[in-house]
């Protein structure tokens, strides 16, 4: 590492890589060379900044200029103007990063202002492939401190006092898990990190592994010391190639520096880590299925108890936690448990990362202190609903969660409040919905997912999710009866009570929650054969408003089903409802807005 007067950080997360950041990085290097700046300006590939949709993202220091949506053709301008002449290219800055002729630092941009970064603190800040940069941010300090100054019991106590709870879904107190695993006698124990991340839309674990892989390595070693394990596994889905690669680099570098392996910090403590790849089945994120998968068996859940802390990997005591949970550990050790215990609400401490998507202006990865309200997330960080539409609900917890309506926008987000509202924290998916979303359709979307992902081991889930899906399909196709709603509800409660693992047990949640808050929408589909949001195709009818029709015939030319009749210039056009395939082409084509769907 040499000293450079300026650093160009180019995001190399999955989102920006998909939008061509690799080519941007190379072009930067080429342009810098051409302008003889390559000895003064360093280009660094980082992890995700959380603003993937505005990507590719680059940030230039020392000014901290935050460029978004950068294209290859823009690079020569940035190099010649900014890096050579010192003139920030205002037109290319992120929209919120520039105000009244001064650039705002990242922390002051609306999207980041209310955030608090603990799990993501190094993401987009360091070069994840350089262990020195992690160490510069106090990396491996916590491991050193623990090995030099603390007993395993003291470490466990600190995690307990911090109030940290599992970020992978259930919110089980992490310190308790450490205590169970440490108290159980056994020669061989394991630490396992769950990086399966199967919730559709969630990508915080990927971002941590891509942007700050060493934090997971360090935390797992600390956990190993605390519970008396000297071997660990990270279970990552194979669809995360960048994460896998960076994690492997991190493990290799840590080994080389003696931060993994034998006699770490001359303490006599040994710890080794390896990666196991998952094939991406959702159920393999469930802890016991995950353990089976590591053992080389089919990824199907085992009955619990015994819990992994007693009989985990190869029947040995195993501490299993989620990536984001682990990524909090080093900070807790360095700053002390009170530090974390002071952030958040009474029973939920620290921060949580959410993947904010759907009908919202700023989508991206946001890390907020527990207790932040949904309103702050949607309207301040997220910048509100686009196109002046009305907010309808937020879906949290993915396929295991539920919807939260506008009456509850001021609820402080924490584990217990979300459960109270028949949703859950889950792994942190947050989908914003507006008036154009049909809630029955949303429930159907999640049911289709769980139905496909059911491993088939137990009948309530294997057959039950399919039945629930079929009923929802009938309802959205206009074939539903009022008894179907009751049947659906009954089925939901039975499956909840009888499925073997969390996948089946929580699969009815999207239905129960939409039934609780949007029963009227279900009834409209069934009784009036009407989809209030205008989403369910089968229930839509297209028609021409006679008063508005100018008899131009454009619609008839566009209709693929040739079901619009009329005589150009002479008669008002009409749609043959029975032949219409509801494609919407006529509605878009009519220049006079004479066609409506209802």
């Amino acid at each position: 590492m040499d000293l450079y007067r300026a650093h160009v950080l180019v995001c190399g997360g999955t989102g920006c890589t998909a939008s061509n950041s690799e080519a941007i990085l190379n072009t930067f290097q080429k342009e810098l060379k051409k302008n003889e700046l390559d000895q003064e300006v360093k280009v660094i590939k980082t992890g995700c900044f959380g603003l993937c949709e505005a990507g590719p993202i680059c940030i230039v220091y020392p000014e901290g200029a935050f460029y978004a949506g950068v294209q290859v053709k823009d690079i020569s301008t940035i190099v010649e103007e900014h890096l050579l002449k010192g003139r920030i290219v205002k037109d290319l800055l992120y929209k919120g990063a520039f105000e009244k002729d001064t650039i705002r630092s990242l922390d002051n941009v609306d999207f980041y202002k209310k955030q608090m970064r603990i799990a993501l603190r190094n993401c987009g800040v360091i070069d994840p492939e350089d262990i020195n940069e992690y160490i510069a941010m106090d990396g491996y300090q916590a491991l050193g401190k623990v090995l030099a100054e603390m007993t395993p019991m003291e470490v466990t106590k600190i995690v307990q006092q911090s109030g940290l709870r599992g970020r992978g879904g259930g919110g089980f107190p992490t310190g308790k898990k450490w205590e169970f695993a440490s108290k159980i006698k056994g020669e061989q124990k394991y630490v396992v990190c769950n990086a399966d991340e199967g919730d559709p839309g969630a990508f915080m674990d990927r971002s941590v592994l891509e942007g700050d892989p060493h934090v997971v390595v360090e935390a797992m070693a600390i956990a190993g010391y605390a519970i008396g394990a000297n071997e660990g596994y990270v279970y990552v889905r194979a669809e995360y190639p960048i994460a896998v690669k960076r994690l492997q680099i991190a493990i290799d570098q840590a080994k080389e520096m003696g931060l993994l392996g034998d006699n770490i910090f001359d303490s006599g403590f040994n710890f080794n880590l390896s990666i196991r790849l998952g094939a991406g089945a959702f159920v393999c994120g469930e802890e016991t299925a995950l353990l089976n998968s590591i053992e080389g068996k089919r990824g199907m859940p085992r009955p619990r108890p015994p819990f992994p802390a007693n009989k985990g990997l190869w029947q040995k005591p195993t501490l299993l936690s989620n990536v984001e949970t682990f990524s909090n550990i080093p900070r807790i050790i360095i700053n002390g448990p009170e530090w974390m215990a002071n952030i958040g609400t009474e029973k939920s401490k620290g921060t949580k990362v959410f993947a904010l998507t759907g009908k919202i202006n700023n989508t991206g990865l946001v890390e907020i202190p527990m207790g932040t309200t949904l309103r702050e997330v949607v309207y301040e960080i997220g910048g509100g609903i686009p196109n002046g539409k009305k907010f309808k609900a937020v879906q949290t917890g993915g396929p295991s969660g539920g919807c939260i309506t506008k009456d509850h926008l001021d609820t402080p987000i924490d584990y217990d409040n979300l459960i109270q509202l028949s949703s859950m924290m889950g792994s942190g998916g947050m989908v914003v919905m507006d008036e154009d979303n049909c809630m029955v359709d949303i429930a159907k979307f999640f049911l289709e997912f769980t139905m496909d992902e059911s491993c088939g081991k137990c009948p309530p889930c294997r057959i039950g999710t399919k039945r629930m899906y079929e009923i929802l399909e009938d309802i959205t196709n206009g074939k539903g009866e009022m008894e179907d709603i009751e049947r659906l509800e009954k089925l939901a409660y039975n499956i909840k009570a009888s499925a073997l693992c969390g996948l089946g047990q929580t699969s009815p949640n999207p239905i129960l929650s939409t039934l609780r808050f949007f029963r009227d929408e279900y009834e409209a589909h069934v009784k009036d054969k009407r989809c209030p949001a205008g989403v369910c195709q089968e229930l839509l009818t297209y028609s021409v408003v006679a008063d508005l029709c100018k008899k131009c015939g454009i619609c008839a030319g566009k209709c693929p089903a040739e079901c619009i009749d009329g005589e150009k210039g002479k008669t008002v056009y009409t749609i043959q409802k029975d032949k219409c395939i509801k494609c919407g082409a006529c509605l878009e084509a009519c220049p006079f807005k004479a066609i409506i769907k209802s």
Partner: protein
Amino acid sequence: MKSLDELAKIRDEAKSKMGVREGSKDIRIVVGMATCGISAGARPVLKALVEEIKIRSLQDISVSQTGCIGICRYEPIIEVFESGKEKVTYIEMTPEKAKKIVSEHIVNGNVIDDYTIGSVSGKYSSHGTVEDF
């Protein structure tokens, strides 16, 4: 890795090289790099500054460029901003002079009056007027 001291050493070294990415610095050196500055030889001046800071492994200093400072005929110009002190403007820089500024002004804290805009202030009424540009 044998000890926390060893780790601390690696940390400090790595940290100084990442210093560029921290927002505010105690000392900021700004080089005028508009077209006029570049044609007057601002590039070698900037390079010399960075080189000298590197050699001396100085910390908490940032070097950046700015557009035209507005007094083109005195280019190359560099300005030194130090928190809590008045800005110092040096004019008609050469790489040698720039290095000397690092050793004298930045390291020892002595402003080199001969190089400052004040040295030609005969042509202006006072320091202040030049500042007004």
